[in-house]
């Protein structure tokens, strides 16, 4: 009996928190960014990869018994490899493109050479002994 009222009170308390003043809401909107911000990059990656992994496992092995159409499974199971290949290609293409379009600053080098000559002349006049 007393157990029952206790639980009952607990439920009311939680509901009050939800409804009055939106305590839980503000608590979560405050806490989530803090957690996300203080996560190291490593943790962010672990977090992201496990989310994808869980989604993949759910569909491929039908862990929730959702009785998904078999086509879903066929698309899902090679997904990780597919994603890896796409990412690899993207990386290679990006780096390759950036190497190919890396500016060669010929003019800057020429300008510097001319300025070095000018500077040497002027510094000598001012009495600098190298």
């Amino acid at each position, binding site marked *: 009996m007393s157990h029952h009222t206790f639980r009952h009170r607990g439920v009311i308390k939680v509901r009050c928190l939800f409804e009055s003043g939106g305590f839980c809401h503000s608590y979560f909107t405050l806490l989530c960014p803090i957690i996300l911000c203080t996560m*190291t*990059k*490593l943790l962010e*990656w672990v977090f992201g990869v496990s989310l994808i992994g869980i989604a993949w496992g759910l569909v491929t092995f039908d862990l929730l018994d959702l009785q998904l159409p078999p086509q879903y499974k066929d698309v899902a199971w090679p997904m990780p490899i597919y994603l890896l290949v796409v990412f690899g290609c993207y*990386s290679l293409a*990006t*780096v390759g493109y*950036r*190497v190919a379009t*890396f*500016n*060669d*600053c*010929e003019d*800057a*080098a020429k300008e*510097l*050479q001319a*300025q*070095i000559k000018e*500077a*040497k002349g*002027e*510094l000598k006049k*001012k*009495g*600098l*002994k*190298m």
Partner: protein
Amino acid sequence: MQHFRCLYDVEDANMASRRGNTKTHLQSDKYSVLLPTYNERENLPLIVWLLVKYFGESGYNYEIIVIDDGSPDGTLQIAEQLQKIYGSDKIILRPRAQKLGLGTAYIHGVKHATGNFVIIMDADLSHHPKFIPQFIEKQKEGGYDLVSGTRYSGDGGVYGWDLRRKLISRGANFVTQVLLRPGASDLTGSFRLYKKEVLEKLVERCVSKGYVFQMEMIVRARQLDCTIGEVPISFVDRVYGESKLGGNEIVSFLKGLLTLFATT
């Protein structure tokens, strides 16, 4: 051209205040340039000459702090001569007795900086002082906490790099961008302008040494929610003196990258 702007501002103060108080900025802001040197006897006079030239043309208040680590080639003696030529208010010498590394050279230099902004650059002529006025304008434009020179975007670029070096550089940059998402395109470059108090705060937090130090500065800046501006620069490989990009450097870069990845 900037010269005229100064005169113009004096004549028409009204106009100046409407354009964001250019005049008062020019008078109250001071830029301390930190030049760490180790065996740069040939480069130091040239970089100082260029700095004097471009600061003179743009009219900003400045000082140059030379931090020499007991270079055996006599860089310090050259610096003393330069101090005589340009005045001890412009050239400030803060030498140390032995080679203690780049990171601590910055810490040492900042302690003696009297400006409210600090510019960090290499003394080997790969960072050209002509970009400094652009850094300053960029900083004023957005009120940025730090402005970083970038070789990787816009008109930025390099000179004297072969394909191998370009590939390593671009590859390392890509991996770093993917892993750390730092909000700046050039992490290992060391041509930057900082608000002095921001630099002090960052330097206090940085633990790594050498190459990785520059990268950590940007990553810490992101952690502290600093605002970052970028100016494309051309990076011309050093003409005089020794360069030292070897396999060793790549290994220490990777180590540093992974450390930052796991801890920040």
